[in-house]
C-alpha cells in the first residue's frame, strides 16, 4: 500500500474541515476525489502534503509515518503536489521552474528536465518565457512537468482543469494516461470536471462534510441522481 490515511482531522485555526478522513491508495492507482465546494477536497490534499497540521489521525506513506512531517521532507520521500491555481514561480523562466522541481534529485537536472519535456512537448518552445507570462493551460502543464521533475511516487493533483481551455484538458488527460502507462504513476486527483475524473480514475471517493462517505466506480458518474446527491454538480 502506498498511502494509508486513518481518521485524519485538520482545519484552519479553530475551524475543523476534515473530521476523520480514512482511505488508502495502492501503488499505480489513480484515485479521484469528488465533493461539493467546501467539503474539504483541497484541504485534504494540503493536509496530505503537510501544509495543514493534523489534529488527529495518522498518515502512512509507504512505511513512513508522515503525520507530523514537514512538507519539504514529504516531498523528499516522494510526495508530489500540483496545487489548485498552479502556483508557478512567476518571476522564474519555464526552465528555472523545472529546475526548482529537481530539488529532490541527485542526478543531472539537464537529463531529468529533457526526459520530462518529452512528455510535455508544448513547453519546449517556452523555456525562456517567465512563468507569469504563460497562459493558464501552459501554466498547468508546467506545474505538472515541474512536479514530475522530482520523480514523485505519488502525485496529489488539485483541480487541474480549472479555467483551462478544452484542447489543453484533452492534452492533460492524454499526458496523464501516458505517464500512468510509462512510469507507473500513482495519483490522487481532486476535480470537479466529471468527464475528466471519470477518464482518469480507477475509483472515486466522495467527500462530504470532511469525511469520505462513499466510493463509486467511474461508470457510476453517469447516474445523474447520484451525482446530484453526493457531488452537487450538473453532468
Amino acid at each position, binding site marked *: 500500500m502506498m498511502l494509508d490515511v486513518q481518521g485524519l482531522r485538520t482545519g484552519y485555526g479553530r475551524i475543523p474541515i476534515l473530521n476523520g478522513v480514512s482511505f488508502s491508495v495502492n501503488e499505480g492507482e489513480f484515485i479521484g476525489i469528488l465533493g461539493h465546494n467546501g467539503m474539504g477536497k483541497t484541504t485534504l490534499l494540503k493536509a496530505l*502534503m503537510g*501544509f495543514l497540521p493534523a489534529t488527529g489521525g495518522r498518515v502512512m506513506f509507504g512505511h513512513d509515518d508522515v503525520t507530523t512531517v*514537514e*512538507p*519539504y521532507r514529504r*516531498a*523528499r520521500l516522494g510526495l508530489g*503536489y500540483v*496545487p489548485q491555481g498552479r*502556483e508557478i*514561480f*512567476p*518571476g*522564474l523562466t519555464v526552465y*528555472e521552474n523545472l*529546475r*526548482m*522541481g529537481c*530539488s*529532490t534529485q541527485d542526478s543531472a537536472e539537464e537529463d531529468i528536465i529533457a526526459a520530462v519535456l518529452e512528455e510535455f512537448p508544448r513547453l519546449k518552445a517556452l523555456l525562456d518565457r*517567465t512563468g507569469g507570462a504563460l497562459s493558464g493551460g501552459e501554466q498547468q502543464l508546467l506545474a505538472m512537468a*515541474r*512536479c514530475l521533475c*522530482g520523480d514523485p511516487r505519488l502525485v496529489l493533483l488539485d483541480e487541474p482543469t480549472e479555467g483551462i481551455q478544452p484542447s489543453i484538458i484533452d492534452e492533460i488527460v492524454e499526458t496523464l494516461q501516458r505517464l500512468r502507462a510509462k512510469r507507473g504513476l500513482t495519483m490522487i486527483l481532486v476535480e470537479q470536471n466529471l468527464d475528466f475524473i471519470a477518464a482518469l480514475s480507477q475509483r472515486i471517493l466522495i467527500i462530504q462534510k470532511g469525511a469520505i462517505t462513499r466510493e463509486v466506480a467511474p461508470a457510476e458518474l453517469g447516474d445523474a441522481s447520484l451525482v446530484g446527491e453526493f457531488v452537487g454538480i450538473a453532468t
Partner: protein
Amino acid sequence: MDLVALLAIQVLYAIASLALISVGLAIIFGMMRVINLAHGEFLMLGGYAAIVATNNGVNIWLSMLVVAPIVVGLIGVVVERTIIRFLYGRMIDTMLATWGLSLFLVGLTTAIFGNTTVGISAPLGSFQIGAYRTSAYTLFVIAVAAVVLAAIFAVMRWTRLGLIARGTMQNANMAAALGVNPPRVYAITFGVGAALSGLAGAVLAPVSGVFPTIGVAYVAKSFITVIGGGAAILTGTVSASALFGTINQIATFVTTPVFGEVALLGAAIVLIRLLPQGITGRFFRRGL
C-alpha cells in the same frame, strides 16, 4: 579636466558606499520581507570586528574582507535562528524585535569599547590626478562594491543556491512542496545579508571610524536606498545608489556636505512620491 576626473571618482565612491551599506539590507528585506532595524548595528559590528582583528595582529585586508563578514554572518545566523524565525510574516513584531536587538548591540558595544570613536588607518596612500590628490582607498571601496554586486548577480543568476533563493522568495510553500527547506534558505539568506553588512562596515571603518551608535547614520541611508530601489534586490540597490549617490556628491561638491545630505533626502522624498514602488517598480522590472 583633472577636476572632472576627481569629481567622477568621488561620485563613484558615493555610489559604491551607498550600495555597500544597502545591499545586505536589500537581500534580507527583499527576499525575506524582514525589516531589520538592527542593520546599522550589523555594519557597526563589522567595523569593530575588523578593528579588533587588526589590533590583534591579523592582516588588515584579511580583517576587513574575511574576518568581519564571517563574524557578522555568524551573528546573523544566530539572530535568525533565535529571534527572526519565530516572527516570519509578522512585520511589526520583527521590526520591534530587531529594534530591541539594535539597542542591545549598541549597549553591549558601548560597555565593551566605550562611547568613543576608534579606527584603523586606511591601508592605501594617495595618488595624484593633475593638480589634485585623492585617496587610493576610495578606488578600493569602489572596486569592493563592484566585486560584491557582480558576485551577488552571478550567484543569484547562475547558481543552484541563487535559483532556490529566488524561488523561495516568490513562493516559499511551493518551494517546500518541491523539496526545498525554506527555514534553511532563510537562515542562509539572513546570514549572507548580515555578512555583507559586516563587510561594508569593515571596509568603511578606515574612512569613517567606528563608534557604538554609528549604525544610526548607516541605517537611514540604507533604508532610503532599498525603498527607493524597489522590489528587485540588485537592480534596485544599484539604480537607487547611482541616483542618490550622484545627487549627494554633486550637491556636496557644489555646496557643502551637509547640503549634500539634505539633497539626498530630498531626492528620496521626491522619488518615493513619484514612484511609490521604487525605481524597479517602474523600470528594469525584470532585473534581479
